[in-house]
């Protein structure tokens, strides 16, 4: 992980760490914090705790997003402090709806300069974000909303498994992982498990990201905690709930970063600092039947 982040994430980069509630790349984010990256433009539909931590750590210059809350719990307080101008250094924001962000990644992945969608009419979003525009349909003449392509310098995606070439398989919630990967100039895939290429080839319909577009593969079990990895471990809801109190207080948040991010060398050490984590969250097996690719 250390090498992958050092090689592919630079100060000032536009960085997408995707994974919608599922497979959020916390391990990679923590390594970025440890390496002291600055002036990043952070892109995610849901900044979630992962970007709240990076904002608190001072990595972010700008945030591109569509829903900035603590899912099922409440606020992202580091984010709010930065926006509500209470002491924290100001944070530039560029805001869309979820569909708007999905469309931005879709355009980037398809190397189109824009993506059309029926949205935003009647809302105040175009008023505060002039990158939301419209085109006239060449057939009906009606105005259709557009968003510009998002092409991150680097996309970091967590997944269940990949082979050494980066052929990556994901199941359960897929979010916009595929679109973010194809939209980015460089792709870091972080996996729970490294598997032989034969495992990938045995079920090619499960492959979400081809190795041909992957820059680095990092094996990092529990790398998505406190989010979840279907088939590997459950969401750590206690952690999300607990974040409310930690993040409310700048000092407590700094102390948390010192202990759990700066204070550990890597993910293994982070897991070791959470006694009972593995026992508490490890998934019980629920294996589906395979299908036949025979002919």
């Amino acid at each position: 992980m250390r090498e992958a982040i050092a090689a592919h994430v630079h100060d000032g980069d536009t960085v997408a760490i995707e994974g919608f509630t599922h497979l959020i790349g916390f391990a990679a984010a923590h390594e970025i914090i440890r390496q002291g990256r600055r002036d990043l433009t952070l892109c995610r539909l849901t900044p979630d705790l992962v970007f709240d931590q990076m904002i608190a750590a001072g990595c972010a210059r700008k945030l591109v997003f569509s829903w900035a809350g603590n899912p099922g719990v409440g606020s992202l307080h580091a984010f709010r402090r930065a926006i509500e101008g209470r002491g924290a250094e100001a944070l530039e924001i560029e805001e869309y709806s979820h569909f708007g962000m999905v469309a931005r990644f879709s355009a980037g992945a398809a190397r189109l300069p824009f993506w059309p969608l029926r949205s935003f009419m009647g809302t105040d979003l175009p008023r505060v974000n002039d990158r939301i525009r419209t085109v006239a349909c060449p057939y009906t003449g009606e105005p259709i909303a557009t968003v510009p392509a998002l092409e991150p310098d680097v996309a970091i995606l967590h997944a269940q498994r990949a082979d050494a070439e980066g052929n990556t398989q994901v199941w359960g919630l897929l979010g916009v992982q595929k679109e973010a990967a194809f939209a980015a100039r460089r792709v870091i895939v972080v996996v729970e498990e490294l598997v032989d290429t034969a495992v990938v080839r045995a079920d090619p319909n499960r492959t979400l990201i081809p190795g041909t577009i992957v820059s680095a593969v990092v094996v990092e079990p529990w790398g998505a905690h406190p989010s979840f990895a279907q088939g590997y471990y459950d969401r750590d809801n206690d952690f999300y709930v607990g974040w409310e109190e930690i993040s409310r207080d700048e000092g407590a948040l700094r102390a948390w970063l010192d202990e759990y991010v700066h204070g550990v060398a890597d993910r293994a050490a982070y897991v070791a600092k959470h006694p009972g984590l593995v026992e508490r969250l490890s998934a019980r097996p629920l294996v589906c039947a395979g299908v036949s690719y025979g002919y």
Partner: protein
Amino acid sequence: MAVAAARELRDGEVVFVGIGLPNLACNLARATHAPRLVLVYESGAVGAVPERLPVSIGDPALVAGSLMVCGMADVFQLFLQGGRIDVGFLGGAQVDRWGNINTTVIGPYDDPRVRLPGSGGATEIAIHARRTLIVSRLSRRAFPERVDFVTSPGQRVGGTDRRALGMPGAGPVKVITDRCILEAGPGGEMRLAALFPGADVADVRAAVGWPLAVREPLRETEPPTAEELRILREVLDPKGLHL
């Protein structure tokens, strides 16, 4: 509120579900009069039958045993924009006279008093679902004449009807609160349609930031049945997270 919301759902409908109370309402409806309700979550789980009350819209319990899991591009392009969603649930910090919702900021956008999470999927749910149901606790702060920021458009925005603005869905047909149900009148204005047992018109009027019209005849809602309460308290939300 959960009971009133559940009763708005018809069997076989495809519902775009958020977490919390709407989730509770949908599962109550499934357990009572609408067993064939299909729940679609913005995370991409379709036809989920969660074993436990999901804490987030992205909960592994929504995935295991669902009918389909698809990427979010499909959720928004094929299901919502594609017109495949019958009912969408919405909530928010502010709901105004025309059913416009604000989940973005209290105060000016560039210097907000309170920064809220933002749209998420709400903007497109409000625009594309065939009809939407707004669920929100009644209070003067939550029901201003005009929202500070339109995140999710209602029946009229800036004096223009939603159809004239090109929105495919019918928009918010009802607002379900903890004391009453408002519904969109002919002109799109939210008016009082039904009172919960024990609530009265004056209190409701006092909690709303516009001169609230009252539909005649004004209904009184049926109180929750013992069965509805049992399912809510014993099965769906034993911890009382949302009740």
